[in-house]
């Protein structure tokens, strides 16, 4: 069992915690929000790294975070940093050149698709973008489907353009075409709030014209919110007979009756994936920059059989064991 220290900054009280237990283990400081997905990822990281590493956690939400972190880095003297989500990155960026040596430390970043931009200005960075890649989503759907499918529709905003272009290239390898409708590319990234549903409906008509067989819902609060759920998303499958692939399990629940297939990150395995980058750097001597930012690999999945039946999507029953959770009424 690795020595894992839950650490919440409390003045100088932490000094007592840092006095002796670290031994020769490699010291990592994980700067992270206290939210469940990050804690699961941290648990996966800690579990995979084992006794050879000591991981201290620093909560980004602690009072006077910058000053506190300064003290922790000086005292704990980490050999690497694990930065989870944007606040952690901003915090560390702000400390560069501030009296503690940050630049030379290997950094392992876990965050969503804006990670590439967020890490600009940081040196020695590897990490994982934990937006689920389209490749993973649709190859998983193909595994459990009896019918092959070739055309996937997606609504997106300008901010997601790079992700969509990358997704198109990867899906092309699997002979799938991603048909994207950017809702704000012609308006400099702005969509008046009252017009989103109208734009979604107009673009849906375009997907129908282009014979998109599946609709991919991105995890984007602007396009998926209370209003658009009610006025658009919840009606899509019924109105157009097209299955929706969703980014959260509750959107594919029997109660919600929206998504046919749900895919979201396996956060514990995300931590294991990050642990392997840590191992490559500290035990195989690879440079973090050479590893770069990887896409997330492991996911959790759910299939809603009632919805599949409604949209007449034939599933391969022998392959359903490969889905994390299979839902059906009764």
């Amino acid at each position, binding site marked *: 069992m690795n020595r894992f220290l839950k650490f919440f900054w409390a003045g100088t009280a932490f000094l007592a915690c840092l006095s002796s237990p670290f031994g020769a283990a490699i010291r990592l400081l994980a700067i992270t929000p206290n939210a469940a997905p990050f804690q699961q990822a941290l648990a996966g990281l800690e579990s995979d790294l084992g006794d050879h590493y000591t991981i201290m956690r620093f909560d980004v939400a602690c009072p006077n975070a910058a000053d506190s972190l300064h003290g922790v880095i000086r005292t704990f003297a980490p050999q690497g940093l694990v930065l989870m989500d944007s606040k952690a990155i901003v915090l560390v960026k702000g400390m560069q050149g501030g009296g503690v040596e940050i630049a030379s430390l290997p950094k392992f970043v876990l965050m969503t698709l804006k990670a590439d931009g967020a890490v600009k200005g940081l040196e020695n960075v590897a990490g994982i973008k934990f937006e689920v890649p389209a490749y993973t989503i649709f*190859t998983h759907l193909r595994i459990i489907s009896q019918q092959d499918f070739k055309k996937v529709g997606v609504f997106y905003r300008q901010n997601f353009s790079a992700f969509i272009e990358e997704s198109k290239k990867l899906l092309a390898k699997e002979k799938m075409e991603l048909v994207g409708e950017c809702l704000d590319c012609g308006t400099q990234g702005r969509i008046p709030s009252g017009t989103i549903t109208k734009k979604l409906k107009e673009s849906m008509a375009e997907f129908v014209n282009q014979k998109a067989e599946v609709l991919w819902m991105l995890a984007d609060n602007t396009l998926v919110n209370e209003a658009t759920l009610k006025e658009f998303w919840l009606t899509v499958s019924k109105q157009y007979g097209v299955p929706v692939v969703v980014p959260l399990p509750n959107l594919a629940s029997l109660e919600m009756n929206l998504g046919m297939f749900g895919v979201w990150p396996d956060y514990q395995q995300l931590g294991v994936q990050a642990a392997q980058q840590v191992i490559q750097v500290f035990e195989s001597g690879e440079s973090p920059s050479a590893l770069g930012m990887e896409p997330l690999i492991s996911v959790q999945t759910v299939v809603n059989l009632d919805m599949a039946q409604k949209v007449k999507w034939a599933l391969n029953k022998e392959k359903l064991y490969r889905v994390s959770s299979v839902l059906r009424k009764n």
Partner: protein
Amino acid sequence: MICIPGGQTPTRIDSVFRRVAAPVPIRCFQRIKDLDEALPAHPGAPVIGSAAYVRYLQGYSVLLRGKRGQQKQKKYLIISGNRAIARRDVEGLKVGVLDFLGRDKMPAFVKDAFGFSIAKLKRVSKKEDLQSLLGMELVDAAIIEESDFSDMQSDTKLALFVITESKPMDTFPVFACVVKEACVELQKKLSLQPKSALQTLGIEGWE
């Protein structure tokens, strides 16, 4: 304690074997690391897991060995979508593998199976993840069970090919105990299970 990484979900295995094992409580794990961490709290608990894993468990004896048809051992393949890769290149490449032994033991297993070491093994916990690794070019090659190759080919449009194959390996699930006498009842129940139940463990019978 049951752990069959890359196979049926722990929930599915639990649903089949909970009734079989009763009144003995069971726990199912997806990752070998989770089983590793749970075992010290349940010393001597009967285990169903890969033979390659169980042989590292001190004090355990194998009471039942799983088989598929008449097959008692499995071969593994190193596959890739890049036809330029030859067998001699593999040692220096990034290779994905389903982790059924844990971080410390997988490299030794791979060396034993193929006769050479692979320094950059990328471990995953689900078979599907190997396809993602190959498709997104996060690895150059992947190690899979020979019996999974045709399934994998039908699941993807990537043109996969076999670089090399392993010698036959003892990796089918086994049932193992520390105190044999205490496991007699459970051994009997397991050996009476129909093929459909045993298939959730990736086997068709015991010997």
